[in-house]
């Protein structure tokens, strides 16, 4: 058995990661904390998309709509008079609604769309951001209209003794960790198996007693709720939202991030979040150094490379490397002693 597969090694990695994540914001500079909080936010958004796209195999181009809807739902509560009067309670209600409102929207869309398949579902989901942006501008009393609205609620409370960026970091990372854990258990349990079978063949799923319709509705609802959480986190780190938050372009970027990170992978969702947040920053650095704006070029090259070389996304990189290494070892063995008896213990 390989050492990196052993249980104790995994425990060590988990503990080290937790400790680093817990201590890092206390020593890192504010910008690093703000960036990591944003990564946590968009990793959650990508995770939601992964539930419906990576695990259940339904292309969704509307994930950003649920992110924006979650942000608006939370903002509406926090900015309302009763929300302000409730203080921390108001923020809790804002969080609950940021999950519930997109959840209901996802359920309704799912009930209508899940009867369709493949491209048809993708088309229905395209409509969401396209309709969402003008709606957000129209209902300016609720949304602040086209110029957006400031929602200053995530300053560090005095008792914490933290800077604002540290507080926002902890809020985002902790909530993101909980959501990741919940989704991890969801996709590994009964529902995860249902997602997988619906993804591979809906007829077989039906024959096994798994309703493709219900499974797809469930996946879309969960994706929308997870997207709503990302919307709440978006508000925590940005303290501002505008119709642009749910723009169609961002939805495509989320899909690209999912593919680059790795569809149907928990780690891939984190990598997707990193990619989504860091790409514009990297492009900025290059443009400052060279004077050329390269974001679209980098994005194009990265997605082509991912599709050709790593169809499983960056998350599949270790697996691909292991496979290549094993193949080389295999060649050497085969070339040396052709009739070597195979060891039944090695797989």
């Amino acid at each position: 058995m390989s050492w990196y597969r052993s249980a104790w090694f995994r425990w060590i990695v988990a503990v080290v990661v937790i400790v680093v994540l817990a201590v890092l914001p206390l020593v890192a500079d504010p910008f690093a904390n703000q960036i990591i909080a944003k990564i946590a936010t968009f990793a959650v958004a990508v995770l939601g998309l992964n539930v419906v796209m990576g695990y259940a195999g339904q292309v969704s181009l509307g994930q950003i709509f649920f992110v924006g809807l979650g942000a608006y739902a939370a903002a509406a509560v926090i900015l309302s008079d009763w929300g302000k009067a409730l203080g921390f309670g108001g923020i809790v209600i804002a969080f609950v609604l940021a999950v519930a409102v997109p959840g209901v929207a996802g359920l309704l869309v799912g009930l209508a769309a899940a009867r369709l398949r493949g491209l048809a579902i993708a088309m229905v989901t395209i409509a969401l951001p396209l309709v969402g942006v003008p709606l957000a501008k129209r209902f300016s009393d609720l949304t602040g209209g086209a110029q957006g609205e400031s929602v200053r609620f995530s300053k560090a409370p005095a008792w914490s003794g933290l800077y604002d960026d540290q507080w926002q970091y902890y809020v985002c990372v902790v909530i993101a960790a909980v959501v990741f854990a919940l989704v991890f258990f969801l996709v590994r349990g009964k529902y995860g198996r249902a997602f997988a079978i619906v993804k591979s063949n809906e007829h077989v799923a039906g024959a096994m007693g798994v309703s493709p319709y219900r499974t797809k509705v469930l996946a879309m609802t969960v994706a929308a709720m997870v997207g709503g959480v990302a919307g709440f986190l978006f508000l925590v780190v940005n303290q501002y939202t505008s119709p642009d938050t749910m723009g169609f372009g961002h939805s495509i970027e989320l899909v690209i991030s999912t593919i680059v990170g790795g569809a149907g992978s928990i780690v891939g969702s984190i990598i997707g979040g990193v990619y989504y947040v860091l790409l514009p920053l990297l492009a900025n650095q290059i443009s400052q150094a060279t004077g050329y704006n390269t974001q679209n070029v980098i994005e194009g090259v990265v997605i082509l490379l991912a599709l050709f070389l790593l169809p499983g996304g960056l998350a599949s990189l270790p697996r691909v490397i292991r496979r290549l290494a094993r193949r080389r070892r295999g060649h050497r063995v085969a070339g040396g002693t052709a009739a070597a008896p195979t060891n039944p213990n090695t797989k």
Partner: protein
Amino acid sequence: MRMTSTGRRSMAIAASVGVLALALAGCSRGGSTGGETSTSSAPSPGITDTTLTFGITTPLTGGTAGPGNCTADGAIAYFGAVNDAGGVKFGDGKTRKIEIKTYDDQYVAANALTNFQQMQADGVFAAGLGLGTPTNQAWREAAIDAQFPQVLVMTGDPTFSDQTKSPWQLGLVPTYQMEGEALGKLLTTDGKPHKVAILSQNDDYGKGYVEGFKDGIAGSSNVTVVQELTYEVPAGGAAADVSSQITQLAASGADVLLNAVSITPTVINELKQMVSIGWTPNLLLPSNTNSPGGILLQDGVNAAAFPGIYTTAFSAAAASPTFATLDGGQDFLDDIAKYTKQQGVPAFPHCVWSWIGAQILEQAFEKMTEPTRESFMTALRSISGFTPTLMLEGTSIDTTTDGHPAVNAVVTQKFNGKGYADADSLG
């Protein structure tokens, strides 16, 4: 004592975690972070005895990249030449070079906020000149919290010049209301009957224009608004399809169109369609979508078909034949060519605006007596009666009036086939 193998492993894990935690916690956060009040003489971040770093977050890519790049390039050109001549002599007696750092926000609000946070990490002294209302709004309150100057922003949103709401901000360009009002007044002067159709984007920009325009025509007997339509601006500065609105407005029989549209490709499509359906009213164009080179002289746009194209301006147009003879005109063209990647004469007025903004900044730098952000804001708010080069006669800079952006007046102009010339009435 013998431990089981599992016990030893957990001990080892616990020990290494402890060491790691101690090691990480040992290096405490260095430097000062936002919120700490500095004593009056301690320099703010981003300023040394020899340099000052000024940040610009603006769309450098995407649908508004043309004007966006210009908002940075004017200042880059101006300070490029100033730096090569030695730098700016500040009010505290030191001479500093001005380093401009640009950040691309793609007209996306969340990116603009990230850029602001990166500016703080990069040690930028102050920022501004950037284009866009939502993008500037996205970091307005964060800048106030950090007591960080966000100045001479290129948005007509009056919020930025309201000192109570925006103590660390100042707008550069005239508000939408100011421009709309000037266009309204233009129609009233000739006394002839005018039927006006209004197309406006459904946001603060469009509403501000329409509000100002109606103020301008209030009380006049010769101007009537026959139809008003709005449309939604797509995210990211993309072109909108307003063809159905144009068809409806054409049916109204109006002889004047107030076109409160801020996105360049949308205006180009619109003008093409109007010519193709044979509706060619007088056009009233806002200052940021009136570009001769960027819009009116584009392939397929037959600007000559319209009886008159009017706009407001406070700055000289770089494409005008007399531009090079103006005070500072040739310098502008030379420095833009030398220090930026603009191809030829810049097509958008934002390059000249940015050049004017840079001169206002220079004034403030020369007036600031301490190397602090507070001193900079005080100096910036004390400029009046200043006329930078390339500003039109009848306009000037006054930063001392609360509620007003730095540019305090606009003049109305008519398109003459190549550029714009002053015009007081239609015809």
